[in-house]
């Protein structure tokens, strides 16, 4: 128990007053000669014992009354924990981008700072305080505990918003680790918006000497919309917008390319759902474009804009040559291929007999499906075709002669076509997204491909033999047929993924596009220098060995190969979802170390005081005072009554 006005405890010395009065009241008796003492003795023996008990009780009550009055003035506080004078307080202030959320005209981070200021005023002046800001990293603000509140206030103002996600547990662990050699009793006050994605209990928290208080500065009914992802392929840009509120909402969205508004969209999103919207881009030059997607303003603006580099390519023309035409399209060599390619390009299908008369110069990619043999002119034409930077793809089949292929096409093919094998299973090598789809494919036959020295095996079977081989000359060879005669892969969900993967080579550009979060560091391998960096605002920095992505946008890194880095807030982490965590969950996880949560509302000061110092129990003492006063009156007037 401690006292808010401990100076009044001097009043306890007044307890001696009733004792002194009691002692002084023992007056010298006057002498009276009396006729017979028997009745007096009898009366005294009956009354005095009771009287003395009553008198001592009265004395006790009067002493207690003085103690209680003193305690009322001293304002006693019952502690939940024993806190020593050396207790130190560590503030952990959430500065993840969700703390930018506006409520009542203020950002959450401002409220968090106010919470710290209010709490500082309530703490013991001698109490030492440390301050850290945190998102998924912890940044010391005042790392060595100090009682210098002026310094704390100055440093507090310097805390800026981060573009990263919240990780409370990591932050607590980091702080505990930081103070691991310090045995002083500590209390950690976590000031955060309570967004549940920030409380992922990845590992146990070791908090032996720590007591934890959580302050909630978040909105009770948060409303937020975010551009949570953007994907590009070919001439298509697909944006994913998420609605993290409880109501259905119509959202307007704009696509800007190279700083100019290009297209806009308006669509509805159901509560706690995401919607995809695809833009077909036309009439821009092939190559890399700096773009962003932006939705209309809401309470949290950090996640409303998404930057990305867009490698635009016009839709290529693709010619499929069927080497073994059938009456039924379904049985043909090109049916499934055409379906898989349709969304990426303009596809034309012909029989091999028509190929000679066809002008192949209008096409970027030629697919030969189970074509038996090529004459000299064909081979010459194909040679010229790939020399023009175009692409050849071969699907094999029963129709082909592997000997002829290996001899006539040896200078074109990236591999030797060897024997037919009867069983195979695809490996997920290079196709991570198809992992779950590669379980049930039925491969009846396949060719064993033996790659040339400079060839690259893009996809493999589980026995490590090639499934898809790519030559340096942009010639691709599959080990199976493109119809169902060798396997059921063409009708499996994995097939479009394989085709998309293949197609990404057709669109390949020298430039490399990567993604990073604001605050990440780009680093070359040790000792290497980055020759030139162009930041989103056009600032050029040369010869750096590392780069901090300070702001959102597209960074150009001019290396031996041009790199573009899309730098955005960490929206994919779920930080934009402000749905709150249940306090019971926090309590359960922090267990004995948990003191409680406080909402940063108008009663904050009273509530945090209760958690810091315990419950002020003055009112109970007032009640006791009343009870004892009544008792005193009854006992003092016992004889009169």
């Amino acid at each position, binding site marked *: 128990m401690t006292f808010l006005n401990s100076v009044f405890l001097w009043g306890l010395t007044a307890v001696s007053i009733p004792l002194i009065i009691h002692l002084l009241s023992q007056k010298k*008796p006057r002498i009276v000669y*009396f*006729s017979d003492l028997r*009745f007096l003795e*009898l009366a005294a023996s009956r009354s*005095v014992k009771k*009287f003395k008990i009553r008198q001592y009780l009265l004395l006790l009550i009067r002493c207690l009354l003085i103690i209680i009055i003193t305690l009322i003035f001293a304002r006693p506080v019952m502690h939940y924990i024993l806190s020593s004078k050396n207790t130190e307080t560590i503030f952990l202030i959430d500065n993840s981008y969700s703390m930018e959320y506006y409520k009542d005209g203020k950002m959450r981070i401002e409220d968090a700072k106010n919470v710290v200021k209010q709490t500082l005023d309530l703490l013991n002046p001698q109490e030492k305080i440390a301050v850290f800001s945190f998102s998924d990293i912890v940044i010391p603000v005042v790392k060595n505990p100090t009682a210098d509140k002026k310094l704390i206030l100055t440093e507090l103002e310097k805390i800026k918003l981060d573009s990263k996600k919240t990780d409370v547990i990591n932050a607590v662990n980091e702080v505990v680790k930081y103070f691991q050699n310090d045995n002083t009793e500590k209390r950690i006050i976590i000031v955060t918006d309570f967004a549940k994605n920030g409380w992922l209990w990845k590992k146990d928290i070791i908090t032996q000497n720590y007591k934890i208080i959580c302050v909630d500065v978040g909105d009770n009914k948060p409303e937020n919309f975010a551009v949570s992802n953007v994907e590009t392929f070919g001439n298509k840009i697909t944006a994913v917008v998420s609605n993290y509120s409880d109501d259905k909402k119509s959202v307007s969205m704009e696509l800007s390319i190279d700083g100019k508004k290009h297209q806009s969209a308006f669509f509805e999103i159901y509560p706690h759902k995401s919607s995809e919207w695809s833009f077909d881009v036309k009439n821009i030059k092939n190559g890399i474009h700096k773009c962003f997607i932006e939705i209309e303003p809401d309470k949290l603006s950090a996640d409303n804009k998404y930057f990305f580099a867009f490698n635009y390519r016009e839709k290529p023309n693709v010619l499929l040559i069927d080497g073994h035409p059938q009456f039924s399209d379904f049985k043909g060599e090109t049916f499934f291929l055409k379906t898989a390619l349709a969304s990426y390009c303009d596809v034309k299908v012909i029989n091999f007999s028509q190929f000679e008369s066809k002008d192949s110069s209008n096409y970027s990619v030629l697919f030969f499906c189970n074509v038996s043999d090529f004459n000299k002119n064909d081979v010459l034409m194909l040679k010229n075709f790939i020399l023009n930077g175009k692409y050849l793809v071969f699907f094999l089949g029963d129709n082909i002669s592997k000997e002829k292929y290996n001899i006539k096409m040896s200078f074109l093919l990236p591999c030797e076509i060897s024997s037919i094998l009867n069983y195979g299973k695809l490996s997920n090598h290079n196709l991570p997204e198809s992992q779950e789809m590669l379980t049930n494919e039925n491969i009846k036959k396949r060719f064993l491909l033996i790659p040339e020295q400079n060839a690259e095996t893009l996809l493999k079977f589980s026995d490590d033999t090639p499934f898809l081989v790519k030559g340096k000359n942009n010639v691709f060879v599959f080990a199976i047929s493109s119809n169902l005669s060798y396997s059921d892969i063409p009708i499996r969900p994995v097939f479009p993924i394989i085709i998309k993967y293949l197609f990404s080579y057709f669109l390949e550009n020298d430039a490399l596009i990567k993604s990073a979060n604001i605050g990440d560091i780009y680093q070359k391998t040790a000792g290497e220098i980055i020759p030139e960096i162009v930041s989103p605002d056009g600032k050029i920095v040369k010869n750096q060995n590392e780069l901090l992505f300070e702001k959102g946008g597209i960074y150009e890194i001019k290396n031996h190969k041009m790199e573009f880095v899309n730098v955005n807030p960490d929206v994919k982490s779920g930080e934009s979802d402000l749905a709150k965590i249940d306090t019971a969950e926090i309590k359960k996880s922090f267990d004995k170390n948990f003191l409680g949560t406080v909402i940063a509302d108008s009663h904050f000061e009273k509530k945090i005081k209760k958690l810091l110092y315990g419950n002020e129990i003055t009112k109970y003492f007032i009640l006791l005072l009343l009870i004892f006063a009544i008792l005193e009156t009854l006992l003092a007037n016992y004889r009169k009554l």
Partner: protein
Amino acid sequence: MKSYLDPLTIAKISTMSLKAKYVVEGFISGLHTSKFKGHSLEFAQHREYSFGDELKHLDWKVFGKSDKFFVKQYEEETNLKAYIMLDASGSMGYKSIGISKLEYGSYIAGALSYLMIKQGDAVGLVVYDTEIKKNIPPRATLNHLSIIFDELSKTTAGGETDISKILYDFSKKLKKRTLIILISDLFDEQEKIIRAVKNYRFAKNEIIVFHIMDKIEENLDMNGNVFFKSMENEKFLITETDIIKKEYQKIILEFIEKYKSEFRRADIDYSYFNTSSPLDLSLTNYLSKREKLQV
């Protein structure tokens, strides 16, 4: 002597007759009636003659007038022999205001002696504490009255009390029915006193008890811490009178009530006085009550 014969007291007592409740056998004639024949007879009433009545008691005058036989009946007048036993123990010397219990008792004793001698009764005086200090045998002369008054004026309080022993011892000396007037604060072992007083009744004596107490003894009307010293012995007690007062009053009330009830049950006259009550009123009240009992 004047103090014992206050004119107002004597005037009031003179208007009433002190008559014993029971007819006491005695030698001295007086105002007191007796079932037995005495030296002088006084006509009481007529009764119709019945067989066996002595003829000498026939009233011939009535026969002459009414032609019927009536017999004259007479009451015998007897002399009362009385002892006034005055307690002179230390406790009787206690007085809070006005007069002490001993003084008060002496006034009663004086007044009664005067009254009784005037009626022709023989009065004696016994002064005692733990033993009989003075014993004046009963006489019916006025000279004897002055002896009693002298003794009363000389009597002082002192020593302890042993009333029951005195009463037992004294009862052995009585050979005829005697009226005993006991004047005391009765501060002794209550059961013994009651037994001793009852003993007189069993011996066919008449006993009247005047119980005298001081008002302070009755209600302990004093405050603060008091060092009480006994007036009869070396005992003492230090106590808060405020604390014990209520209990004390209760004990004293029980004490008085016990005497009252026990004596009433034994057909013994008991009167309680406190020294602050007017002396003459106490006597008048007593005599009135005595008269009623006589009827």
